[in-house]
């Protein structure tokens, strides 16, 4: 029976080529636009570390003064000061903890005649690699003892290793960063979580390539490497950021259970109270957000991308309404044919099924075309000036979703016409003929 419906549908679609093409193209356009924007939205609002994000938390305490403070309303600052970072780090109240800032690392050429160049650097502490699941190709990270002793070591990315050493193991080699000789102790595999959750608020981009060098915080500071972003609440000598009234570090902890989360929040509150008692703090607010919550707080997905997705779905809705109208008009024109079929014994549900098959075929064709439009749309996105541009590709999920959206929207569009067709009384139509 299904084969028969397919044949009927094909014949009917072929009878009105222009109209059929019109329906398929509009549906394809709507689906293409929706899938393009949905792919980008999904890409941008994705989980950078799906296996671990629920256990990673961003901690905030607020060293700012009473200027502009409203109790209960003011949210804690988004970065913390060096003193607080060190206090929290040394308190060891979480399974793992990391303080970090971004920096511009000036890397000297290995061969004479080449020019020094700048790369993105991360100044951080020992747990960074284990906590964020950064995989090593060669060697490994440094220890907490290396942090304290300002060991002259560095971990480099795969792409810097390729650039400087042609991809061979460079562990043990020396590179000169900001005029200081550092020994390479590890080379990462390709590692670029998207969004770059750890770079939020630190002055880096939210999406795109990973960082090139990772070095112990105190080693980097001793080499006069400055954080990309800092904010001071009083007149400050920013050459001595460790003691200046400035915030410039992000602080992450790993906690494995709800009990630990509650305990750590309590610990942060107690810490703020203790600092208030010491006269260092004025504001008691603290915050502990899990990774995804932190990304939401940061509004990491650009407003424009949401707007585009909303726009595309509005467009799809109009395309579907358009298709409903055209299918309906078409099926009403075929009243006579339906009348004949009904008179010859076709049941209402068979008529219904026949028209749904026709709608489904339009949907599938629209989906195929939509896929072409989506690929084109994503190609356009890749040529946009946005920092996430290079990441916009259609994956298997979105590929399947395209057809699901196409089928669902065309079947929804077909429901009303098919129902109307099945309700036609055979007699009156035959009489008219």
């Amino acid at each position, binding site marked *: 029976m299904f084969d028969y419906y397919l044949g009927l549908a094909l014949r009917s679609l072929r009878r009105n080529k222009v109209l059929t093409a*019109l329906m398929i193209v509009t549906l394809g356009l709507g689906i293409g636009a929706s899938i393009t924007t949905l792919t980008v939205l999904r890409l941008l609002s994705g989980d950078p570390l799906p296996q671990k994000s629920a256990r990673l938390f961003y901690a905030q305490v607020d060293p700012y003064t009473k200027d502009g403070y409203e109790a209960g309303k003011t949210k804690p600052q988004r970065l913390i000061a060096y003193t607080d970072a060190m206090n929290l780090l040394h308190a060891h109240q979480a399974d793992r903890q990391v303080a970090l800032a971004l920096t511009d690392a000036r890397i000297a050429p290995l061969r004479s005649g080449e020019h*020094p160049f700048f790369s993105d650097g991360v100044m951080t502490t020992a747990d960074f690699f284990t906590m964020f699941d950064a995989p090593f190709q060669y060697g490994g990270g440094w220890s907490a003892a290396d942090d304290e002793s300002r060991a002259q070591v560095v971990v480099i990315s795969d792409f810097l290793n390729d650039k400087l050493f042609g991809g061979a193991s460079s562990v043990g080699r020396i590179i000169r960063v900001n005029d200081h000789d550092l020994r390479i102790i590890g080379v990462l595999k390709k590692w670029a979580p998207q969004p770059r959750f750890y770079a939020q608020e630190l002055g880096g981009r939210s999406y795109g390539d990973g960082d090139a060098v990772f070095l112990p915080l105190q080693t980097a500071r001793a080499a006069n490497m400055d954080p990309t972003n800092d904010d001071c609440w009083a007149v400050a*000598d920013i050459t001595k950021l460790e003691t200046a009234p400035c915030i410039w570090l992000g602080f992450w902890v790993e906690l494995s259970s709800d009990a630990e989360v509650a305990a750590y929040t309590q610990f942060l509150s107690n810490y703020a109270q203790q600092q208030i008692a010491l006269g260092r703090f004025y504001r008691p607010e603290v915050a502990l957000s899990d990774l995804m919550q932190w990304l939401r707080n940061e509004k990491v997905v650009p407003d424009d991308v949401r707007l585009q997705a909303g726009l595309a779905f*509005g*467009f799809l809705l109009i395309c579907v309404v358009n298709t*409903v109208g055209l299918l*309906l008009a078409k099926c009403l024109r075929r009243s006579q044919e339906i009348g004949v079929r009904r008179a010859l014994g076709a049941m209402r549900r068979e008529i219904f099924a026949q028209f749904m098959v026709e709608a489904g075929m339009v949907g599938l064709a629209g989906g195929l075309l939509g896929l072409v439009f989506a690929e084109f749309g994503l190609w356009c996105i890749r040529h946009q000036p*946005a920092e996430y541009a290079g990441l916009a590709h259609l994956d298997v999920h979105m590929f399947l979703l395209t057809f699901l959206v196409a089928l669902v929207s065309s079947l929804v569009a077909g429901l009303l016409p098919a129902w109307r067709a099945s309700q036609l009384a055979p007699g009156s139509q035959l009489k008219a003929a």
Partner: protein
Amino acid sequence: MDILPILSTLRRHKITAWLLILEIALTCAIVCNAVFLISQRLERMNLPSGIAEHELVQVQLANIGNRSDAEARAKTDLAALRQIPGVTQVALVFQMPFTDGGSSNSGIKLDPQQQEDTVDVTQYMGENLLSTLGTRLVAGRDFRPDEFVDLDAAVTALHSGNLKGLPQVLVITQMLAERLWPGQSALGKQIYLGQGLPFRVVGVVAHLARPNRLSKGVEYSTVWPISMNVAQGASFLIRCAPQERERVLKSALAALKQLDPNRVVLQKRTYDEARHAFFANDRAMTGILVGVCLALLIVTALGIVGLASFWVAQRRRTIGVRRALGATRANILQYFQTENFLLATIGIVIGMALAFGINLFLMQHYELPRLPAIYFPVGAIALWVIGQLAVLGPALRAAAVPPVVATRSV
């Protein structure tokens, strides 16, 4: 034209008619808001910077070597750049209007006792800044050479609370003057920074936009007599005739490399390129919005054509009868045009309400202003025109139906 017969026909095609109305309403709602978004973006992209945009090139170097000799290097560098033929002005500045990256901002107060800052302003610094940028002074004067303080010295003075080591005066924009002292002359007035440090306004410039953070007030800018060098993050800003920019940029790079071949060039561009890059996202978004609007209008128009064609085909016999009973071609044409006008009108009314709702939603979530009232009549006219154009073809075909059709199939 009699409307009643049209209404009674439409009542028999309720579902199709409502679908058409729905489509027009949705299109109207989305297109109104999209066009509004486009106009917002265009307005943003056309904001005046207040500077001689087409006459400026920027070169930014990374500081290599130690900080202490940076001031001496700055003097040599500036002297070398001034030697280049065609260069009229050179300055070492920290920021330019409409550029991403670092910017210096601060809250200012009108009263030293004030708890909250009055406004957040951006701070422009650098010797020769006003004359290099080409900003027009509308009142007061530019800084005198003896008023300048080195940035590091100013920071040290701030730290030790030594008021003498700080600059005493500043220049502000007209927009900021009007915000702080509406209707009065700003010259000689005091503003306060931080814990009540006083500064006196000696000049007012016509326009000078901020680098970024535009939402805090595009032209809330201040200029300070503070000199900067490359180590403090300043870049060279060179002014020359528009047609000389490429050549001057090349010569400037050559001159700077000659002084020290090991320097890393972080940025080399004309100001036009910098501004272009700053608004790149807005430009892309505008393109997308225009594309969606066009696609929507085309889809809707084609939908109208499709439905109208079917109606015409379906009513061929009725049309024939009307023609046989004496209706002219013009009557038939008008019939379909009026029908479309009625449907479009209902769609537009619903669409406007929807447009208003979407605008309210966007206002809440995306800090967008209210949709100006002018969008409603303009949107309505646009959709009426599109509806009439779309229905014209099918209506003409209907008018061409000969009266003889009435007799044939009976």
